[in-house]
């Protein structure tokens, strides 16, 4: 069954990709969506089987891969609780995104290719989550990277999309460098790449030391940190996060599937998969906690200042991934996975909702041109509201009710507090403050988009639609229309764009887009309530597939009441602030930004990471490349090597010059004769 789940999407991708135009849009879309629906339908019974305790972990061997000395690894599919959780997340969101794309990509000229990429991505992601050894995990890891590259650059005529695609791939490769070194080191220490064998042997190695780059360091710490660097790349953690916001150049369904619900959570999955190994590496775990907490707050601060609706959600994703990592760092892998699970639903919902808004607003992505859309696209509004309530963590502890994010985020904050270490407290405070900002930027997005007066008139996209009539296919081609780059031209931090509809009438999205929104809304509302006991409190549910820290979970439930309400309190504060600034007094944000000048600009410019990296890496890489080429290869090696020799030869002998100008045949003959003569002479 698992073989079917994993390879159906691959088969569909091959059919749709190679069939392409011969197959036609409808058939290609049906094949891929059908395959994913089947995969999804087969995944849920597995998950429910693990939930009820009737399934046992198993491994299906597919094919041997490499056998080189003692370094051997196979293609194999592992299913246990952790995999089952990822299976339902991946196949469910993927199937819904496939369905959603029927509507969203309807007018794109290149649909089979899009659906083939989506299915290919799903295959790679499934290979990743079913990996039984580190190398197959790396295969999936790179496979999703490839699909991400192709999908970000799907509209390959756009320079910005191409740049974003390359950036995503290359930045991820920086992380992969760490991952690869981690695999090499793990093999060196354990003589295997099989994950169960490593996890079993890891505790015995916890006191070992290893030479690394000339230093003697704790073996497990260095291995785990190297592997975690890979996770930082894929999960866009601080330092290696710069590709994620740019990845929003891809079509919005892609953002929902890859850059919110599944691929970016691969890093969290990896840390949880290897959790018994990480538990032998205290320094590495501290590093994970710190990076997680720092990313969580960093991304939230940037998210509060962005105008592009997709970028706000992208930074929000980055921030939520930070929560997952510090939960793992303090030892609450169940909580990390739970947040991954709930986040997949509500973040995919928010992205698809944003896609629906963008679709309605004729591919305008700048929230300053939105406003008053509540009545125009009510279904999208309600779906987005469910997503917002989920991400901000609305729920009341003592009543035991709440939206999905309430259950998982509160658990993470409580466990960080309960951990009792300095770093745990740091993570708790950062997480709480980030929750405040989360609430602020999420409601800011809602208020700017759905409340207030319409501010559509000035949008080029809207004007375009009104003047040219938005039913002509080429006008509607998202390849030309979707464009996430307004922050460059408009730097005025004010939502007070001129009011008016510009004569434009937004339209609700087609049914194929609304069904996924409906299903995901259900998830955003119920996923927490339904599954919290299993994910958080049940060692039996996890059944050894992650490191389950029973005493820590007990401590988590015993934190002071104030801690339990911390997330709720900051959520209300954030909501109030957003209400004040974007509904009550809309001149407030501009004044605030002016007051906070440098701080605002620092946040608005994403802490200047892109500029810094450009200066540190990109410009020097090209400069050194040119310099090495001109001055070393040509200026030194060639000049004193072959060209120098040529100069001497041409100066020295006219005969040699004649040789060079043509008589290659005789030259060759002379060489061969000389060769034979030389050998003969020496031998006799």
């Amino acid at each position, binding site marked *: 069954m698992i073989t079917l789940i994993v390879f159906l999407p691959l088969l569909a991708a091959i059919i749709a990709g190679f069939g392409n135009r011969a197959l036609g849009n409808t058939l290609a879309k049906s094949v891929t969506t059908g395959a994913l629906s089947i995969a999804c339908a087969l995944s849920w019974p597995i998950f429910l089987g693990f939930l009820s305790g009737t399934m046992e972990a198993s491994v299906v061997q597919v094919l041997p891969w490499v056998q080189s000395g003692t*370094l051997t690894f196979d293609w194999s599919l592992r299913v246990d609780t952790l995999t089952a959780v990822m299976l339902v997340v991946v196949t469910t969101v993927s199937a819904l995104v496939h369905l959603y794309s029927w509507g969203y990509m309807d007018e794109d000229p290149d649909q089979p290719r899009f659906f083939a990429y989506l299915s290919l991505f799903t295959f790679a992601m499934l290979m990743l989550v079913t990996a039984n050894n580190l190398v197959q995990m790396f295969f999936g890891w790179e496979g999703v990277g490839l699909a991400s590259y192709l999908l970000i650059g799907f509209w390959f005529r756009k320079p910005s999309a191409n740049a974003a695609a390359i950036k995503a791939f290359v930045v991820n490769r920086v992380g992969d460098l760490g991952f690869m*070194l981690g695999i090499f080191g793990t093999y060196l220490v354990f003589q295997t790449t099989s994950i169960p064998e490593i996890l079993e042997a890891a505790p015995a*190695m916890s006191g070992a*030391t290893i030479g690394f780059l000339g230093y003697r360091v704790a073996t497990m710490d260095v291995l785990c940190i190297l592997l975690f660097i890979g996770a930082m790349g894929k999960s866009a953690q601080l330092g290696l996060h710069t590709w994620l916001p740019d990845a929003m150049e891809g079509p919005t369904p892609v953002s929902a599937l890859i850059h919110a619900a599944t691929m970016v959570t691969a890093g969290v999955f990896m840390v949880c998969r290897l959790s018994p190994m*990480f538990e032998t590496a205290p320094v590495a775990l501290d590093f994970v906690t710190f990076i997680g907490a720092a990313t969580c707050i960093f991304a939230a601060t940037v998210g509060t200042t962005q105008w592009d609706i997709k970028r706000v959600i992208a930074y929000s994703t980055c921030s939520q991934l930070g929560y997952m990592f510090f939960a793992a760092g303090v030892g609450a892998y169940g909580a990390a996975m739970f947040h991954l699970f709930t986040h997949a639903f509500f973040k995919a919902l928010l992205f698809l909702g944003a896609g629906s808004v963008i679709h309605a607003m004729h591919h305008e992505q700048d929230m300053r041109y939105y406003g008053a859309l509540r009545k125009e696209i009510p279904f999208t509004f309600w779906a987005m509201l469910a997503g917002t309530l989920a991400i901000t963590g609305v729920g009341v502890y003592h009543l035991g009710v709440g939206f999905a994010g309430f259950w998982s985020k509160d658990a993470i904050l409580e466990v960080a507090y*309960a951990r009792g270490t300095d770093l745990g407290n740091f993570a708790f405070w950062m997480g709480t403050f980030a929750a405040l900002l989360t609430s602020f930027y999420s409601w800011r997005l809602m208020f700017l988009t759905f409340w207030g007066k319409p501010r559509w008139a000035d949008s080029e996209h809207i004007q375009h639609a009104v003047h040219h009539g938005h039913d002509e296919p080429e006008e509607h081609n998202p390849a030309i229309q979707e464009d996430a780059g307004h922050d460059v031209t408009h730097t005025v931090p004010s939502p007070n764009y001129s009011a008016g509809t510009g004569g434009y009438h937004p339209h609700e999205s087609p049914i194929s887009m609304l069904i996924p929104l409906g299903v995901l809304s259900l998830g955003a509302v119920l996923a927490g309530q339904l599954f919290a006991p299993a994910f958080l409190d049940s060692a039996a549910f996890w059944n050894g597939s992650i490191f389950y*820290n029973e005493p820590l979970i*007990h401590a988590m439930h015993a934190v002071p009441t104030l801690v339990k309400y911390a997330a709720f309190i900051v959520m209300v504060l954030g909501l109030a602030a957003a209400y004040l600034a974007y509904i009550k007094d809309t001149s407030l944000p501009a004044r605030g930004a002016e007051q906070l000048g440098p701080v605002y600009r620092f946040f608005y410019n994403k802490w200047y990471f892109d500029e810094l990296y450009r200066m540190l890496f990109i410009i020097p890489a090209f400069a050194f490349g040119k310099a090495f080429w001109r001055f070393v290869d040509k200026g030194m090696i060639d000049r004193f090597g072959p060209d120098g020799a040529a100069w001497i030869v041409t100066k020295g002998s006219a005969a040699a010059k004649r040789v060079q100008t043509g008589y*290659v045949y005789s030259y060759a003959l002379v060489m061969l004769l000389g060769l034979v003569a030389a050998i003969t002479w020496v031998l006799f």
Partner: protein
Amino acid sequence: MGFPILSIMLLVPLAAGLACLFLSAGAARMTALVATLVNLALGILLWLNYDIGGAQWQFTEEASLFAVFRYALGIDGIALMLIVLSVFLMPICILASWDAIRTRVGEYMAAFLFMELLMIGVFAAQDIFLFYIFFEAGLIPMYLIIGVWGGDNRIYASYKFFLYTLLGSVLMLIAMLWMVNEAGTTSIPVLMQYDFAPSAQTWLWLAFFASFAVKMPMWPVHTWLPDAHVQAPTAGSVILAGVLLKMGGYGFIRFSLPMFPEASAQFVWLIFGLSMVAVVITSLIALVQHDMKKLIAYSSVAHMAIVTAGLFAFNIQGLEGAMIMMLSHGLVSGALFLCVGVIYDRLHTREIERYGGLSINMPRYALFFLFFTMASIGLPGTSGFVAEFLSLAGVYQVSSGATLILTTGIILGAGYMLYLYRRVAFGEQVNADAAAMPDLNVREWVMLAPIAAAVLWMGIYPESFLAPMRQDIAALDARLARAAPEGDADVQIGEPNARAANYVAEEHAAAAEGAH
């Protein structure tokens, strides 16, 4: 001695090559294609009949010529794989030249067929002088291919190519003569078991190094390669990258390592150092190239650096990784040069800026090009990954620092290859003539598809390629064991931690609960 299949494989191109010299253009093309296909069939037969786990040297043939000169052929798994690579690429090269070569077609085809003869000869030779003759004579057809059918600056390029490679071979010849004198045999299998005095090994190693480093090519004697590639016709580049560069690696694995283990160990850091420099510097240089062929040529230097590092890791993973890298690079860079050739044939320029947006008018071409780009940057599932992964895993066991530097190649490689791909295949169709180019024709499809299949095969199930070499690599590893350098990891097992890192005392939790 049974059926002399190796001699037949040498005779077929020889006879066909001689015939081509006297044939008309059309007949020469057909003769060359048939001859190379026959050799491909023979190569497959060779592979199928190779007894994995059997004798180390198989299909041996021997005949005394005059004096000490012997005609001795025979192959082990390593040679087998390289011969199969050569005969696999040859028909593709003939097809690639089908329309592109219009002048002196007979001579051109003859040069290619002689080339094939010499390549097979290099890998099959069991006599050190026979090897030398094949090894050096291999220069001549390539020299002619570049010099006669090359681009505008072909004389400079062919001359540079010749000068570099000849320089190394003179030293190698002297070393060979000394060795034969010392050991009293010209048989390569016997010499591979002979223990030279360590002090002599150093000099012999350096003499061989001079030749193999140029052929590889290693930094800083690599500058002939970009020029040679740029000037060579497409098929010339394919053979150059696909097989000729492998002769250096083959030399290391056949001569330097088994014959001079102590000296090899002594020079590990020279090799690692040059390899690290090559990976970083040539990758950066590749990033700023405007000429497609030059870019791929520089990327070849970076990939070959992984081969040298893997070979000198002195362990099975490194050696097998290096071998797979040679095979993989032969296929992938050959295919990349073909991809360049396909569009060069249409537009007659290699300037990257003259293209753009080819995904629109040449979608099938764009797909192949993307696939080989990904194989070149080592995407798992392609041969490039298995190669890189094994080599670097081998090097890691010797030095984590060297591995760190060498592994930056995966970042830089992704950088320059994707940058190239973007400028060629993505973006708007800014050049009208590039936008008017037709997609792949059947001939081009037939050239690229088999290579793609092989790359995928080697990436997903490399066992087919590893199995024939396993025994030979193990034997080499055993011979090298006495000199193998100490790794820098040196894991020392200490007292394990009593508790998990996030251990929380149950009492603490209970107390907190009480307080609450």
